[in-house]
């Protein structure tokens, strides 16, 4: 009975969540105000798009992928996706795209309930980077036609092994080529000093975010992947701002205190697991509870790590941005990715890897070319693949996933 009681213990919530809510709310209120009054120009930007450049040129920056995640987490996505399907956007393509376009068509957004904001802010310009996928360009092109505003962007290299100078020169030149359009839309001249300042701030956001994630190397880990997917909000939408950096100072302090006091993300941590692939946004709570009941902490993930841009350097802003955005896991070849996960294995000391095969997100589903099998041999740990999706819950079978996860933890118990 003693054992059972322990299992049912609830993890202690993070105190920083209150401040997180305020940072996120302020972000949306500021955008809403600008959208209504025209006080500031608004740029929409892909999650790993050139946010530093946009902020440096005075834009407020809005991230539709963050809105996509909110649509998923609020479980509105599955109802909204069919609106986009009707327009010819296939259920097989990015469900952030389809749910976000569905949200626009149905005039329903989680911002209404959460912040009493009626709609997402109107864009003055849409800026993408295809490092995530081709879908982001298709997504932004839809809104470019709807709002009749320019759609500009950067085309990434893919399957990169060793990063070569020509990769970096190309991407840096593409960043620079965005400036004339941005100057025209903003009505302001590009200011190198302001840009450098934002790059410096953004680097600081990255350093702090990395430090937060690395606290999970401690046994027991002070938090879980599920916590981190929520707390990464400012690293995505507010990187390069003082507010984000202040927030991560607070979060880091709390996480360090938790490690010192032995407060863990899951009660009685027995197993440590790595998550590879997208979160299943609509099932964060139930999956978090399931792993918690199995005394298993998902200590690290490629996903949360993907907003660490260590290479940003205010003295070489264009070149370092090109490097930071080319070093990304998502644009690298299989060998690099496997070496990367091996480094994570050595650092976070996990006993297994769960790959999420997201139906509509091939670029973040790294199980499809035999990687789990290869890594399992190389690291001598088991890997599990679960089928699902980031947003489209029609692609997720809860009972199947649960049985798979429980059987996986049984397997860890046996070994």
């Amino acid at each position, binding site marked *: 009975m003693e054992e059972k009681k322990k299992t049912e213990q609830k993890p202690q919530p993070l105190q920083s969540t209150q401040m997180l809510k305020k940072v996120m709310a302020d972000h949306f209120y500021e955008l809403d105000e600008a959208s209504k009054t025209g006080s500031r120009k608004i740029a929409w930007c892909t999650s790993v798009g050139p946010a530093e450049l946009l902020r440096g040129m005075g834009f407020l920056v809005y991230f539709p992928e963050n809105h996509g995640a909110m649509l998923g987490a609020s479980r509105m996505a599955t109802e909204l996706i069919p609106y986009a399907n009707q327009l010819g956007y296939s259920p097989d393509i990015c469900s952030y795209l389809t749910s976000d376009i569905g949200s626009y068509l149905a005039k329903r957004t989680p911002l209404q309930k959460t912040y009493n904001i009626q709609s997402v802010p109107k864009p003055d310009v849409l800026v993408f980077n295809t490092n995530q996928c081709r879908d982001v360009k298709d997504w932004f092109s839809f809104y470019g036609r709807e709002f009749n505003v320019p759609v500009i962007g950067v085309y990434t290299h893919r399957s990169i092994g060793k990063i070569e100078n020509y990769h970096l020169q190309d991407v840096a030149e593409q960043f620079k080529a965005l400036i004339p359009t941005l100057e025209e839309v903003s009505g302001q001249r590009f200011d190198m000093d302001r840009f450098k300042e934002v790059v410096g701030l953004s680097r600081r956001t990255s350093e702090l975010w990395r430090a937060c994630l690395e606290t999970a190397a401690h046994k027991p880990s002070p938090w879980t992947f599920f916590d981190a997917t929520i707390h990464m909000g400012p690293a995505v939408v507010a990187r390069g701002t003082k507010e984000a950096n202040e927030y991560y100072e607070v979060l880091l302090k709390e996480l360090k205190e938790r490690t010192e006091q032995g407060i863990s993300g899951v009660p009685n941590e027995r197993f440590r697991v790595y998550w590879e692939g997208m979160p299943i946004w609509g099932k964060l709570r139930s999956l978090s509870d399931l792993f918690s009941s199995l005394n298993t902490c998902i200590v690290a993930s490629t996903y949360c790590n993907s907003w660490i841009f260590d290479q940003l350097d205010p003295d070489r802003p264009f070149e370092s941005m090109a490097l930071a955005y080319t070093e990304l896991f998502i644009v690298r070849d299989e060998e690099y990715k496997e070496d990367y996960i091996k480094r994570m294995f050595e650092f976070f000391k996990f006993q297994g890897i769960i790959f999420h095969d997201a139906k509509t997100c091939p670029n973040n589903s790294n199980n499809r070319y035999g990687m789990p099998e290869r890594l399992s041999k190389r690291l001598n740990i*088991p890997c599990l693949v679960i*089928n699902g999706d980031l947003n489209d819950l029609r*692609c997720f*079978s809860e009972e*199947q996933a649960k*049985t798979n996860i429980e*059987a996986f933890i*049984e*397997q860890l118990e046996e*070994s």
Partner: protein
Amino acid sequence: MYFVGVDVGASRTKVAILDGEANLLGFDVRRSGTDFQKSSREAFEAAKGSLGQSDFSCVSTGYGRKNVDFAGESKTEIACHAKACFHFFPYPITIIDIGGQDNKVIKLDEKGRRISFKMNRKCAAGTGAFLEEMSLRLNIPLEEMDQMARRSTSMVELGSYCTVFTATEVLEKIRQGKKVEDIIKGLFLSVIKRALEMDSLTDKVVMTGGVVEHNPYMVEMIREITQKEVLVPPHPQLAGAFGAALFAMEIHRQQIKGDQK
């Protein structure tokens, strides 16, 4: 004292009762229906038969494992199939379980530890549900399929992943004048292909699940296709329940050990 395993599957509920030597004392198989508690209780009572009242220890498994109120613990069906198969075949094996809605491929090492397992993806193509659907469409009782497939002289190959589209394909084959027994053998091959494409096999293969219990011809087909040694435990449909009962025995013995300390 006896040991009970209850496997509440998506389609059938199975109960196996073992004595302390792992001899099968009684068993039952019935439709799971919608009230898992009721069907598991009824199956347990039926399996007990004339065993009479005695202390028992029970472990549940399967899709409805959390609904068995007389089970002390639950284990996943992956663990239970592995347990039962290694009991009968104690060497490195690959288990292929074809269930009502789930297919599983489980690999065990020489000590019976799981090396890996895979379950079918979102879709139930190639499971028992596929044959049930075809039995309805073709108006041929499930229990007659095995004999009919054996009579096939020229198998009809079917292409689609999808159960519903396969039904359309089958109707088209009938219109073309293909023989029903040849189509049924084609359906069997379709089930086999879905299972075999899930994972690679090791030298020795063990098959479990209701589909091979009722269609032993499928085992012969797999032997021919894979050229491997394909083994089948007694009552392959009971493998999950049998493994659960073995877990019940193990847990009971650990408790006794614990008490003695």
